[in-house]
């Protein structure tokens, strides 16, 4: 099938999923806005779904995205404040209600099967079309590193529209033309007559002014806040221990709870005895659970500790796993899938088969790589709070997809969505884990058994670590043919992994068939800005039956390791410096060359290092962020120490450089943590790891120094939250190769080396 044919079919399938989802979604005509979900309190005016102003001059901005540390509440508010002519400190920022009006179109626009750098008319047409699907579906989500890209125009227009309405109302009040009124710091001034009004004084009148459809936006040269590092709006709460997280939700007369779900994922109990559990002091009830996430038990108790103890005391025999029960067999299935062949080529340049047909053996590089399943390990364990009372369901949850979570919970409760409210709390980490709804579904089911009392349902760390859904494991088989100059003339990559999209869709919409190949399986490998005459990257779907999910940077989280370590092998085999190799293969993409040059300059690449130290480099384009990283390692008596990381990231436009820098560092540490030692393995159908003693992450004493450069040469704005992660593992593995001569092709690296 032609590429366009394939694409159109995929687009239609996405559309079909939306229709099949039916009541999950908002009904929305493309041109008609969703109803504004905000209601005005007494003495308060609502201008649009993002701005409220009170007669007391209070200004509230709705930042309807999950704040899980990435700083979106601050930058979304700054976008509004910029156009509203107020300081960021003058604004109160709220997440706001769960509503289709807060759809995320940006998250879908890069889900299309075109690389980020592809600006062809077809690519743009499909991006625009899928963006419309995003609007129609009304999915309020935080993911895809898309919050700021999605909000960049929308939030500024919300601020500009409110300012124009305030100005119009002030003009009427003062009896002067609107264009003679200026605004600054929440005050409207008629310079000529030296009269002024505060926003609060005209807010109630202004809200009934006509809202401009397409208010003009300030030129970048006029920005006061954007482009400069702001003080984050959530700092005070977070240094004083304020109860802002889901786990901190407290309601009058509240009960506590936990769950004990089948450690064989998706299985159910075959025999159980809850007598001992019910006898634990403080226990109110033990409730059997049977959900699309699996079977098990919930416990309702007077406090979390009693609930934990009772959950432990349930005597239960679990059913068999529906997937291979140990890691060796799982890995063999991935190998078998590679042997079987027949993948879907997301990239197929030149003539791969022809390139290898006559290749002399000494010009071929071949290698097999793997990466493991991973848990997200958010600091705040999964939790949610629910109350079912008087035919209504109230939910409080740290979740990344509130419209979907609300819909799924309304389904299990048998309560219409209009009678379900979901308040999104701050979250102690998300990393993709909170795109799921399991924690909210369990809380809903326990609330059904709690006689109208609210229940705060918190998982143990063990439950959180063991139940996934996980970042998929994958295995890749790669070959390259070198030309006489040492550069590759052909690269062929087969990647076998379970489909994240199918697994995710199946949990929410089990009746929707998912038959198309999943781009996520090869993201981070098929879409990289290298020009190689013959270049093929194929996805081989391996349906293992283990639930898998998005994990910070999703496909690129592991495929960056595959692609960039294999490229390092090619460079070594061809006798070409790894930086020089990239410069030459990337010559068609100046943004990519720019970050590679920058990171080489910052890190002093090529300079002589003392014995026992070495550097490695990697590059990944993901979520619109072009990122090159250099890692320096040192051989020490205690093991390998990661001394320093240099990162150069081009995101086109950095609205808050301080937050961007924090996110790049965060992404690198997240990636290094996984590369150094994290893996989820299976035995007897159960996850082996359980807590931070055997699923740990980087600690203070292991943390390297950082130097980050933020570039703005990319013609398009990129995401930030996930882009630091993909190059971290390969840059580390490549540095270890440079240090030891040992090529590490399997994550985590701790299988082969010890870290200090």
């Amino acid at each position, binding site marked *: 099938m032609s590429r366009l044919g394939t694409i159109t079919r995929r687009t239609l399938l996405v559309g079909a999923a939306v229709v099949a989802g039916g009541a999950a979604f908002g009904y929305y005509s493309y041109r008609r806005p969703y109803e504004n979900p905000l209601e005005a309190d007494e003495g308060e005016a609502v201008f649009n779904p993002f701005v409220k102003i009170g007669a007391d001059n209070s200004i509230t901005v709705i930042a309807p995205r999950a704040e899980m540390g990435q700083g979106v509440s601050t930058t979304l508010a700054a976008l509004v404040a910029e156009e509203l002519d107020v300081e960021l400190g003058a604004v109160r920022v709220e997440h706001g209600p769960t509503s289709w009006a807060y759809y995320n179109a940006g998250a879908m626009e890069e889900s299309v099967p075109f690389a980020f750098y592809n600006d062809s008319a077809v690519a743009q047409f499909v991006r625009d079309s899928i963006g419309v699907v995003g609007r129609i579906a009304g999915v309020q989500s935080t993911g895809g590193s898309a919050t700021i890209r999605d909000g960049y125009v929308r939030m500024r227009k919300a601020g500009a529209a409110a300012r124009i309405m305030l100005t119009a109302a002030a003009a009427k009040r003062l009896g002067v033309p609107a264009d003679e009124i200026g605004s600054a710091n929440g005050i409207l001034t008629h310079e000529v007559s030296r009269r002024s009004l505060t926003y609060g004084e005209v807010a109630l009148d202004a809200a009934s002014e006509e809202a401009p459809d397409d208010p003009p936006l300030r030129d970048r040269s006029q920005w006061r806040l954007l482009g400069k590092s702001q*003080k984050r709006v959530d700092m005070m709460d977070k240094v004083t221990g304020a109860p802002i*997280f889901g786990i901190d939700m407290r309601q009058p007369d509240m009960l506590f709870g936990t769950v004990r779900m089948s450690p064989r994922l998706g299985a159910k109990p075959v025999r159980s005895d809850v007598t001992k559990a019910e006898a634990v002091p403080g226990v109110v009830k033990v409730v059997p659970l049977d959900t699309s996430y699996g079977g098990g038990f919930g416990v309702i108790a007077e406090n979390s500790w009693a609930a934990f103890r009772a959950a432990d005391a349930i005597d239960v025999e679990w059913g068999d796993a529906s997937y291979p029960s140990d890691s060796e067999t799982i890995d063999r299935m991935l190998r078998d899938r590679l042997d079987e062949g027949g993948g879907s080529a997301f990239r197929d340049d030149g003539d791969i088969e022809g390139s290898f047909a006559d290749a002399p053996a000494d010009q071929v590089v071949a290698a097999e790589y793997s990466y493991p399943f991973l848990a997200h390990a958010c600091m705040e364990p999964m939790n949610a709070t629910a109350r079912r009372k008087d035919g209504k369901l109230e939910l409080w949850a740290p979740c990344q997809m509130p419209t979907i979570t609300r819909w799924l919970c309304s389904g299990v409760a048998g309560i219409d969505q209009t009678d379900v409210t979901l308040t999104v709390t701050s979250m102690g980490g998300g990393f993709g884990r909170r795109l799921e709804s399991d924690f909210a579904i369990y809380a809903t089911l326990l609330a059904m058994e709690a006689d109208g009392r609210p229940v705060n349902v918190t998982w143990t760390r063990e439950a959180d670590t063991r139940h996934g859904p996980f970042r998929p494991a994958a295995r890749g088989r790669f070959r390259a043919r070198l030309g006489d100059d040492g550069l590759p003339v052909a690269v062929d990559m087969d990647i076998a992994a379970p489909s994240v999209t199918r697994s995710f869709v199946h949990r929410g919409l089990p009746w929707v068939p998912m038959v198309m190949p999943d781009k996520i399986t090869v993201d981070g490998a098929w879409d990289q800005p290298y020009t190689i005459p013959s270049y093929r990257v194929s996805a081989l779907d391996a349906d293992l039956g283990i639930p898998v999910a998005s994990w910070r940077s999703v496909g690129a989280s592991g495929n960056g390791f595959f692609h960039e370590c294999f490229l390092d092998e090619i460079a070594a085999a061809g006798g070409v410096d790894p930086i020089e190799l990239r410069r030459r293969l990337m010559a068609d993409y100046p943004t990519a060359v720019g970050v590679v040059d920058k990171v080489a300059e910052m890190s002093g690449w090529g300079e002589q290092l003392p014995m026992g130290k070495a550097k490695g480099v990697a590059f990944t384009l993901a979520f619109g962020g072009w990122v090159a990283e250099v890692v320096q390692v040192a051989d020490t008596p205690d093991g390998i120490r990661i001394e320093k990381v240099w990162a150069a990231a081009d995101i086109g436009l950095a609205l808050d450089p301080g937050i961007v820098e924090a996110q790049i560092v965060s992404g690198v540490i997240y990636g290094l943590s996984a590369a150094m030692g994290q893996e989820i393995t299976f035995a007897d159908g159960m996850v082996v790891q359980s807590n931070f003693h055997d699923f740990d992450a980087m600690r203070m004493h292991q943390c390297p120094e950082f130097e980050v450069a933020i570039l703005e040469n990319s013609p398009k704005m990129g995401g930030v939250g996930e882009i630091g992660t993909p190059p971290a593992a390969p840059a580390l593995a490549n540095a270890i190769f440079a240090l030891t001569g040992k090529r590490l092709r399997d994550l985590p690296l701790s299988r082969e080396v010890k870290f200090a």
Partner: protein
Amino acid sequence: MQITINGNVRELDVDPEMPLLWALRDVAGVLGPKFGCGIAACGACTVFIDGQPVRSCVMPVGQVSGAVTTIEGLGEPDALHPVQQAWIDEQVPQCGYCQAGQIMSAVALLAEIPNPTDEDIDKAMSGNLCRCGTYPRIRAAVKRAARSMGEA
């Protein structure tokens, strides 16, 4: 049983085996200390007992023999502890979930070693896990707090 929390004597009707963390959170309503692991492996639940940092998730409340101080007892928005102020000045928190524990560990470190070296910081802070990777800013904030407390 009676327990002093942030200077207030509280009467709690709890099983003495209950970890202090849950007595604080679910019974006394003190929510600053966070639950992260339950096995003293992450430090999110760190509180002081008579000024000494302890992991409240593994400390039976019946064995608490001194006054308990949590992040709430350290400072308040209009009267922050210098360490909290340094955390704001360096813009440390991201998700923020581990930060109450991080701050408590940093306060304990500075009480013992007013001018800590990088090694001192490594040693004192490695028990506190942060999944957002705020370590470089934590290090900077500890040093900033040391300077400001030295001047005071």
